[in-house]
């Protein structure tokens, strides 16, 4: 008899989702899906608002990565204003974005995934939490808390709040950096390096014990998308996008935000409120790709900071071409955190970072604008249309998690087929299937939006569980 296994909710993720695994009559996995079960609607209710409100409005999409939305939204507004922001403002935003990346990656690695990595996938779920990690390895736990504090305190110093900060506005930032704040951040750097070094050492020691998971966790060839600088180094705030194929060859380079809106499409599937992004010239689903730490490190040939450079060389030795297993998102996340700490130190060491000129001003000069940035989870794009008075007519967001959606679903199916056989499974096997999704560190709150009309299915089920009637709106 066929059977459906449901994991609901998927735990230790940001947002709400479930996994369904469909077994055929032989008990083998026929299909599996990752469903995003929440709806937000930011793109619709921003219609009618003045465009300059959009950064602070869009930051409310998420409590973990609001800075990414602030930055991408501000850049979309600046495209409408047709302004170039002052260099110091760009550097300050870069620093804020990197601080967010560090604290978000710390949350993902230490709070959400380290219970699996440190305590084991089969550990009793009651133990398999941040409290379990604290009891088993307090030094690593302290490192995680310290790295999260590092990123959040920088955000609070710059943006006045650690969650949903302000400060980033169309045209730049609202105020320059004070020397006292610069010095306070610089004083935090040595401890951040120590904590990161501890985490990297701990990860490298335990990674080799997860050979089976490495082979089965969304381990397949895909295309990859991410921002790159002109000098081939990694970038999170400016630069241009590059799409590479599974062998590492460039499919398209130098992609601006405007070009992104032309070549990236979004498909809708009936089982999820999150869209499935794809590269239109290759069609759907062949044009699907991955974004985020694994993709970024696969795309760039250098980090641009000395310590992270060493780690990138080691990372690239994991495979001959692009590193394919999504398990290695964990490794890539740690390398990016190291880069973030180094880059923040470098930015603050330039005396020009205290320059008072941090904002450009203008009105509406174009009726459409797009802005892109790298969120912790991957590429983020905001695209807006306004009227002559700057009133929002339309908004579309392409979120990192939607761009990873196809790979997450394929990954869930791959893991389910690997671990569930003859209809038999254990709690540890189901945890592994959840852990595949965790490697992507999805932000489900960010990723779910209305697409015109939402696909909707209503089923009427009797007391015995039999479906009496069904209505579908596609």
């Amino acid at each position: 008899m066929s059977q459906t296994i449901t994991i609901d909710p998927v735990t230790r993720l940001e947002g709400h989702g479930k996994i369904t695994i469909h077994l055929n009559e032989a008990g083998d996995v026929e299909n599996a899906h990752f469903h995003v079960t929440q709806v937000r609607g930011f793109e619709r209710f921003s219609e009618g608002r003045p465009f300059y409100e959009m950064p602070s409005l869009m930051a409310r999409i998420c409590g973990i990565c609001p800075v990414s939305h602030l930055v991408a939204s501000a850049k979309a507004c600046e495209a409408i204003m047709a302004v170039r922001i002052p260099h110091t403002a760009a550097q300050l935003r870069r620093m804020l974005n990197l601080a967010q990346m560090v604290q978000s990656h710390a949350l993902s690695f230490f709070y959400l995934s380290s219970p699996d990595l440190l305590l084991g996938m089969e550990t009793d779920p009651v133990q398999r939490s941040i409290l379990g990690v604290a009891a088993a390895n307090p030094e690593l736990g302290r490192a995680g808390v310290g790295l999260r504090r590092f990123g959040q305190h920088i955000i609070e110093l710059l943006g006045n709040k650690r969650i949903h900060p302000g400060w980033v506005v169309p045209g730049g930032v609202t105020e320059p950096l004070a020397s006292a704040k610069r010095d306070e951040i610089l004083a935090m750097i040595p401890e951040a390096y120590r904590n990161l070094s501890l985490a990297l050492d701990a990860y490298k020691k335990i990674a080799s014990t997860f050979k089976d998971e490495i082979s089965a966790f969304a381990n397949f060839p895909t295309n990859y998308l991410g921002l790159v600088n002109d000098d081939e180094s990694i970038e999170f705030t400016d630069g241009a996008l590059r799409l590479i194929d599974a062998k590492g060859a460039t499919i398209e380079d130098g992609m601006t935000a405007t070009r992104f809106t032309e070549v990236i499409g979004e498909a809708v599937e009936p089982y999820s409120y999150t869209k499935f992004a794809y590269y239109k010239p290759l069609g759907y689903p062949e044009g699907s790709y991955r974004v985020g730490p694994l993709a970024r490190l696969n795309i760039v040939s250098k980090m641009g900071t000395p310590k992270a450079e060493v780690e990138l060389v080691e990372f690239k030795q994991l495979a001959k071409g692009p590193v394919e297993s999504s398990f290695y998102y964990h490794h890539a996340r740690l390398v990016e955190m190291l880069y973030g700490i180094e880059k923040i130190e470098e930015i603050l060491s330039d005396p020009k970072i205290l320059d008072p000129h941090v904002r450009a001003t203008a009105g509406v000069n174009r009726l459409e604008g797009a802005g892109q940035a790298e969120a912790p989870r991957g590429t983020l794009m905001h695209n807006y249309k306004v009227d002559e008075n700057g009133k929002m007519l339309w908004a579309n967001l392409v979120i990192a998690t939607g761009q990873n959606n196809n790979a997450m679903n394929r990954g869930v199916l791959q893991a389910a087929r690997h671990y569930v056989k003859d209809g038999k499974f254990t709690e540890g096997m189901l945890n592994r299937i959840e852990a595949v999704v965790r490697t992507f560190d999805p932000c489900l709150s960010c990723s779910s939006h209305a697409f015109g009309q939402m696909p909707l299915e209503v089923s009427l089920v009797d007391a015995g569980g039999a479906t009496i009637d069904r209505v579908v709106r596609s």
Partner: protein
Amino acid sequence: MKLDSSPARCLILACGNTLRNDDGIGPNLAEWAEERFEQDSNIRVIARQQFTPDLAEEIAAAESVLFIDSSVELRPGRVDFFPVIPRTANGGTATHQFDAPDLLALARDLYDSRSAHAMLLTVGAGSMELGESFSDEVEAALPRARGVIEKAVFRFLEN
């Protein structure tokens, strides 16, 4: 709230969502405490939307901690005040639902910290709907809740 991260003898740690009517009682009382004890460097006040693991570090840096939160299990406006015991190792927890016992356990396990006093002040919530106002019962409970905070802080600092 202050950005000062220096340790204090007494930490007042409140959580709640100010956009969910009575769930905002924690941040409201924290704001009052911030003003009430502004001149006293022995007291540090933190208000957050939810309790998160990184707050364990703040707890470890203080001698005593007073948690403040709303409660849907109490009748609206009821003020309860009781000691908090750190979660045991086998208690089980979810990162999204960290509470005061979890935080004390984390402070113990990560920083070998044991608070001299750890108390929780809860106020029964009438409405958790979207909104920025308190129900009549919670509004009426504010003076009593403030009185409890004052007495607790003075007692913590006496010892």
